[in-house]
């Protein structure tokens, strides 16, 4: 990470993606088995449902040094638990506005719906997120600084 930060040209962002098991993770899995190429900057954390994601997880990811965060779940109406992603939708839309209000660039935090059959869709989402974050450069605002 620190090496990347010094040189913006070759900046490789670290992106934490929270994926729901049933749709988005399966979609990412499908992208793999279909051999769709996409960058490796995304570090995936699998959760049972996108509504499991407390927005504080996002803050924690940023605090630990993530350059971007992506939260992905099933399309509305397709949730394995029937209603989980409706709650996610309300939470994250408001949370993103709050991040914007304190001056975090909205492109650092992305939300998406990816279903289990959308291998290519997942690759597109990842590419878009990485492009956006690369444009912004390393995230240094919320990262916890260790006093040396």
């Amino acid at each position, binding site marked *: 990470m620190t090496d990347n930060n010094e040189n913006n040209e070759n900046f490789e962002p670290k992106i934490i993606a929270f994926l729901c098991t049933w749709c988005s993770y399966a979609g990412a899995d499908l992208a793999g088995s279909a051999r769709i190429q996409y960058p490796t900057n995304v570090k995936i954390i699998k959760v049972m449902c996108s509504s499991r994601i407390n927005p504080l997880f996002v803050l924690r990811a940023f*605090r630990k040094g993530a350059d971007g965060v992506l939260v992905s779940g099933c399309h509305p109406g397709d949730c394995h638990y029937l209603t989980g992603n409706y709650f996610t939708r*309300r939470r994250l839309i408001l949370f993103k506005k709050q991040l914007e*209000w*304190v001056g975090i660039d909205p492109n650092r935090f992305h939300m998406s719906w990816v279903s289990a059959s959308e291998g290519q869709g997942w690759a597109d989402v990842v590419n878009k997120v990485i492009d956006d974050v690369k444009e912004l450069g390393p995230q240094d605002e919320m990262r*916890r600084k260790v006093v040396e």
Partner: protein
Amino acid sequence: MSAKNDQLRKIARTLLAEGKVKYFLGNVRGADGFSSKPTTARTPEEANEFVWDPSCVNNMASYLHEDKKRVLKRGEEPDTRPIGIFVKGCDSRSVALNIQEHIFEREQIYIVGATCEGVVDVPKLKKAWMKRGLPVAATNTLQLSINGDEVIASFDGKQEKFAKDDVIMQRCKVCRYPNPVIYDELIGEQVEPKPDAYPDLEEMEAMSPAERWAFWTEQFSTCVRCLACRNVCPACYCRECSVQRSNPAFGPRTTPTEKMAKAQFSNKTPTMEDNFNFHMSRMYHMTGRCTNCGECNRVCPVGIPLRLLTRKMDKDVRETYDHESGLDTEPKNLLAEYDDDDPEGGFL
């Protein structure tokens, strides 16, 4: 003004004398003569000390939670009578929120509401007082009242007038609920609410993200994490706060569930990054619940404009979901409900 005082005292006295409430939460005059302090009256005599004037800034709804914390003595019968509480328009929303969230039932609280023309910002009033060279000792007999655009302070038979805009709380200038939304008894006449607008946010909204970040960095870096904003908040009633965990001890038998429940979202040291996390956590937890009483802003010892956060949140929630908390006692929680037709903004 004294008529209002008498009315409140009479109501509280009657309630306590008849034993209708177990105790009554209200304001009495503080030691400095300007401010008022929250107090609990258990006898009719104590109720005679109550004041209701523009110095009553405290949101009494926060003190309701103390009732839940009390542990009964051995053999003591629980007192099932309601708690009497004095509320202004803004406080009544906080009480309503607590009823909405089933912290209290409606019949557990006896609400004495008062219509409110605004309360004074005590530090500002003190400053104005000193500037005019008025005697500090005179505050023993100080009586405050609001008349039109003036705050009138009378003491020792003399009167001193201040412009309302200079000494009034910032929150009262945009108050949309000066009249209590729920009450059992009402003091005063209906007051005209302020227009539905957010003039206090315009300045921030015009800024670029980078400027906003610079602004908040400066503000949050002064935070000493005294947690006063959390403690005073009538919507913060968790036994254990997510930002104030005791140091979690993990052993070989700690289950993943326990580990998750003990995740630390900000460290204890008040560094800028952790302060940022704390305030963001607080803001998020208040989403759709905050009643905009503005108490967090008032109690902050380092003067962080926390109200800018809560006001913006209020605006977002109202614009996006047309939701406002604490307007009635119907159970309703923005983030615990959903609608198929919710806006889809921002999802890839």
